[in-house]
């Protein structure tokens, strides 16, 4: 559901919460230990990925199950150019590589809708994963170690910048004429095209925009792990987690991904630490519960509660 219906009071509260969150995350490396900073890094990473995923999938309804391919390509580029390219260049090039790859596969892939698109994106990601695995095996490098990677705080702030950029990007798209065109084609592509929306071009632009930041996120995370395994950076679970966070959040603005990421990330951390065996079970139950009972996620629940609270006061009008 579009978020134009949100009341002014609610958006003030939301603005305050968002500023507090940004401040807290910005201050974290100065007050906390390495474990907390690494946890914060994970949160920022998922935030950047989920917001980017939403630029395509929430806005257009084309659900990508292969977004990890951009993350993996970005990571791979940094590893391959390690100590040959300056780091800043490698990270930017990772974003560019992801964007170019999206532009190339986008035209054919975006011709199919619904489940076909979902499966196709998954297939493309797996194809790239196995191609790179094969290339690595042929060249005799099963894994690589990165020596001299930057420290955690540097990586943390790079990720902070990417999370902020992804949030701004989605906010910008959601509030623009371009975003309105995307929403229209999500609702009915043929009608949107007949009303003047250049659907082919718009879908492709959305795909490219949603790919660039995940490419850079992958590049930055490659620095963190220092030990590079192809299977890890192309893990389909990364794609699935983005979707789960976006679905739990709901809506097609920036608050859904933020709420969904915070919620799922917190639960994962708690369960992982306290009940590793029950982790997957409980996670599955939560996801199934949301899909069945609250298909528009946390944002949808909040909107319903607001509507219920304001209904009696509106009646006498």
């Amino acid at each position, binding site marked *: 559901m*579009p978020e134009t219906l949100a009341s002014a009071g609610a958006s003030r509260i939301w603005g305050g919460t968002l500023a507090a969150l940004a401040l807290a995350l910005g201050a974290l490396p100065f007050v906390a230990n390495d474990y907390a900073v690494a946890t914060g890094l994970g949160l920022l990473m998922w935030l950047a990925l989920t917001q980017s995923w939403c630029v395509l999938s929430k806005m257009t309804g084309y659900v990508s199950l292969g977004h990890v391919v951009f993350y993996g390509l970005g990571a791979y580029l940094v590893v391959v150019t390690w100590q040959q390219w300056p780091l800043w260049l490698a990270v930017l090039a990772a974003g560019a590589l992801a964007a170019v790859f999206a532009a190339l596969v986008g035209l054919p892939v975006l011709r199919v809708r619904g489940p076909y698109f979902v499966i196709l994106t998954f297939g493309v990601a797996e194809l790239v994963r196995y191609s790179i695995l094969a290339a690595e095996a042929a060249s005799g490098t099963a894994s690589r170690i990165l020596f001299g990677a930057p420290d955690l705080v540097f990586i943390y702030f790079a990720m902070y910048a990417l999370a902020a950029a992804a949030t701004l990007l989605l906010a910008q798209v959601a509030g623009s004429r371009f975003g*309105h065109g995307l929403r*229209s084609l999500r*609702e*009915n592509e*043929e009608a*949107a*095209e007949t*009303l*003047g929306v250049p659907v082919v071009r718009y879908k492709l632009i959305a795909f490219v925009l949603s790919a660039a930041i995940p490419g850079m996120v992958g590049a930055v995370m490659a620095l963190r792990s220092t030990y590079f395994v192809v299977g890890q950076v192309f893990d389909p679970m990364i794609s699935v987690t983005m979707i789960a966070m976006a679905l739990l959040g709901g809506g097609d603005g920036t608050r859904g991904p933020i709420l969904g990421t915070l919620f799922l990330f917190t639960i994962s951390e708690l369960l992982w630490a306290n009940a590793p065996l029950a982790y997957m079970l409980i996670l599955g139950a939560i996801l199934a519960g949301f899909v069945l009972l609250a298909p528009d996620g946390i944002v949808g629940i909040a909107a319903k509660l607001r509507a219920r609270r304001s209904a009696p006061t509106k009646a006498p009008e």
Partner: protein
Amino acid sequence: MTTPLLAVRCLGKRFGGLVALDDVSFDVAAGETVGIMGANGAGKTTLFSLIAGNQQPSSGGVDFDGRPITGLSPDRVCRLGIGRTFQIVKPFPALSVLENLRTAAMFGRAGFRDAAAADRHSRAILDELGLADVAERPAGTLTLSGQKRLEIARAVATGARLVLLDEVMAGLTPTEVARMLETLRQLRATRGLTLLVIEHVMRALMDLCERIVVLHHGERIAIGTPAEIGADPRVLSVYLGAGA
């Protein structure tokens, strides 16, 4: 002779071995209202899809305002000034009625860049179509009659000069048909629209149109004023089965 606003030239469309439309030609002058008549499967909706760019013709072409538009994508045709409604309504169900029109106002020939200006333009049209009260409702919650009106409102909101109306009165009660005819007359007058109308409600078509094109199995079998069409022996034989 002035250039017609729409010129359909020898238009043909085949789907494999099936001929949906065969060598159909006619003109529509600016400001004119032309009806398209024909049984189910006569090729009426195919004709609309070819004009609006939703499908590409197998032969022939379409000129709009003196320039060929054959082969253009639907969004480009729309920006040139042709709006169309769909027989099976295609609203943006989760968006509000006003947001449905905003799309048309921003991306059609009207081309508003700014949402506020697009909404002012849209609200005026919702007023004319009697949809002002439901402007904030999700379009998916409207009645069939309301969704038919929304189809027209969106097509008009694009800033179209020519509007293709595909059975906008089908499934409506007689009272609703009468209201719809009144609305269409008003729209035509206030906005100087040219209309091409597919309709099964015969009385409505005879009432509204200056000329009527009759299609049968994809072929144009007659063209003329409602009175001429009503007296045409071929039309009568096809419709009433005389001599069959």
